[in-house]
């Protein structure tokens, strides 16, 4: 591949990367997609991303209107501005997709994620974990003599930070929901 001047691994992400990898910086966008809650709709959205080589950093989906059978997906994705535009246009083409909102550009928004951490520590580590959990406003949802399970809600960065602090204190398992987001106001 050296003589073709294609950066190693660049084709892993998307065919667009082959074209002009340095044209624009890669951006992170949060998209809110309102869809009909019908069989296969998640597969259609995921198939779009995998089939066209786009990235998914996080994806959450749940029904938001039981009578109207609509669900809301929150997708965090990365790409150059041109690719982000493509992703939005391609999402809009899917028949059961009703709305596509780019929360990153449509004004201020709030993003929250929920995570559960299991921390197994002894002695001082156990006390320190509890103290840090208090600072991060994480609550204990389960405890045994050997471990605590914390529940924490916040921005993905806050959860990352909490995870880093818990790691040396005996973090043994973690589950994250992915981002849910709404525009402000």
């Amino acid at each position, binding site marked *: 591949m050296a*003589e*073709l*001047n*294609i950066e190693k691994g660049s084709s892993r992400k998307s065919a667009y990367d082959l*074209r*002009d990898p340095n044209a624009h910086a890669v951006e992170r966008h949060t998209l809110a997609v309102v869809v*009909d809650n019908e*069989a*296969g709709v998640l*597969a*259609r959205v995921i*198939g779009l991303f995998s*089939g066209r080589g786009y990235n998914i950093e996080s994806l959450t989906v749940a029904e938001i209107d039981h009578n109207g059978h609509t669900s809301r997906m929150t997708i965090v994705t990365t790409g150059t501005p*041109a690719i982000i*535009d*493509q992703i939005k*246009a*391609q999402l*809009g*083409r*899917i*028949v*059961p997709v*009703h709305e596509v909102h780019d929360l990153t550009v449509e004004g201020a928004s709030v993003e929250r994620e929920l995570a559960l951490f299991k921390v197994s520590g002894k002695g001082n580590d156990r006390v320190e974990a509890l103290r840090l959990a208090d600072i991060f406003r994480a609550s204990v949802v389960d405890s045994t003599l050997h471990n605590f399970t914390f529940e924490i809600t916040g921005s993905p960065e806050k959860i990352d930070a909490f995870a880093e602090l818990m790691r040396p204190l005996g973090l043994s398992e973690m589950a994250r929901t992915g981002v849910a987001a709404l525009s402000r106001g």
Partner: protein
Amino acid sequence: MTQPMTGAQMVVQALKDQGVDVVFGYPGGAVLPIYDEIFQQNDIRHILVRHEQAAVHAAEGYARSTGKVGCALVTSGPGATNAVTGLTDALMDSIPIVVLSGQVPTFMIGNDAFQEADTVGITRPCTKHNWLVKDTAALPGILHEAFHVARSGRPGPVLVDIPKDVQFASAIYTPREAARTDRYNPRVKGDIEQIRRLARAMTEARRPIIYSGGGVINSGPRASQLLRELARETGFPLTSTLMGLGAYPASGDAWLGMLGMHGTYEANLAMHGCDLMINIGARFDDRITGRVQDFSPQSVKAHIDIDPSSINKVIHVEIPIIGDVANVLEDLLAVWRAEEGSRTQREAVKGWWAQIEEWREVRCLDYDTSPRVIKPQHAVARLEALTKGHDRYICTEVGQHQMWAAQYLGFEDPNRWMTSGGLGTMGYGQPAAMGVQVAHPDALVINVAGEASWLMNMQEMGTMVQYRLPVKQFILNNERLGMVRQWQELLHGERYSQSWSEALPDFVKLAEAFGAKGIKCSDPADLDDAIREMIDHDGPVIFDCLVEKHENCFPMIPSGEPHNKMLLANAETQGQITAPGAVLV
């Protein structure tokens, strides 16, 4: 219709309500109830193909030549998987078709039942939308919505997968008017501010070009009419993609010929040198753009497309207009006439035409004729001369013959040219021609083919004989996979790996074995008479035209190169494709 109906009856009723008069299909266990209903009625004609891929291509041919939605019916499992190539082809070329597939009964789905396949899973990426019907009550609504989705917006293929128990069960039928069509309604009207900007740009352009595509044909006859008005009133030169041939007549004053990899010299250089490019219903395909960084570097680009995802996908445009071609052209012409007084830079455009005429002088489509062997270009040119006055429809397979057909045949009207553009499906032409002939029983339908492509769906000769479909198979037989061979010559050091057709059948005997007529021609002196004999025969014909074996298709833009780096006939072919170009297809 308040009486309950079975699901199978609903299928037939919904097809009738949607104006379907012919279905291409192949029966099997999972669609028997539907076939039983087809047996008991006379409104919908069923054409029994010999392979499901052909059913889908035939539906495509039917759709493209009529502007209506084509319809195919296949069974579960292998029936559905055989339809996948046709669905993908229709998706790439935006052809409205509805494919109905049978499925194992709902209570057996997921059991690895006999002839079970995850049809909606397999066809999800190759349809515009698909449905698995789990309840008979929902079936009629889904069928009506399927036709609506197939024909609305950017047209495309849809598939409805119907389990056998859903076909047997009964429910109340939903008439077409009561069916839900509200959730898919793409915008057809263009943004008037963008249209104003384009009208203004048209008054300022000194080197304009209209680049039209298949979207004009998909938009309907009105769009072709408006395109012609636009070209006539502005005096702008016009070129078209492979998909758009016929929207503007080949005999028209503005016509530069097709553009792209095997387009004309004048069309490609005009695209490269223009200062205003008006893309009407085309999508900047890689066969068109060549190297995107160097694509038409000095131009302001406008792009009219009904699909928002086509805008800025490959080429950044300054004036994006999302809407249906006919709608947008109507508004564009109105604005340009009323607000801009139909102004253009007449003098400058005249100078631009002088430049184009200079390029035309290169005569890029000239070729050497030979008294001993039939040149393929000559064969197509003679076919053109001898069939021009006829009510003619042309299909092609994929490869060199396809490009020669596009270069040497002239199309005066839309919906007369059916070729697999996006997917490049060898084996497309023969079944597509079958579908065209079913739709136009009295027309002259010709499939311009290569022998290798043609063999891929040759079983359909049986269908054509059965239904007395007098399609003419015009096979340019070079005993090679011509385009593969050409690329191997260009970039693999003339190592012709697996690109020849060994052990070919005797096509005349093959025709006779099917009960059709066979004609063989190898002498240029006999060509005209042989073509006339083919045209005059009232029935299907296989015409085996033995042509020059090592002819290359020119002009050609080598892959990875911009428009102004074209190779003309007899060009030195070695080393023309660079290392980055070689990775492209």
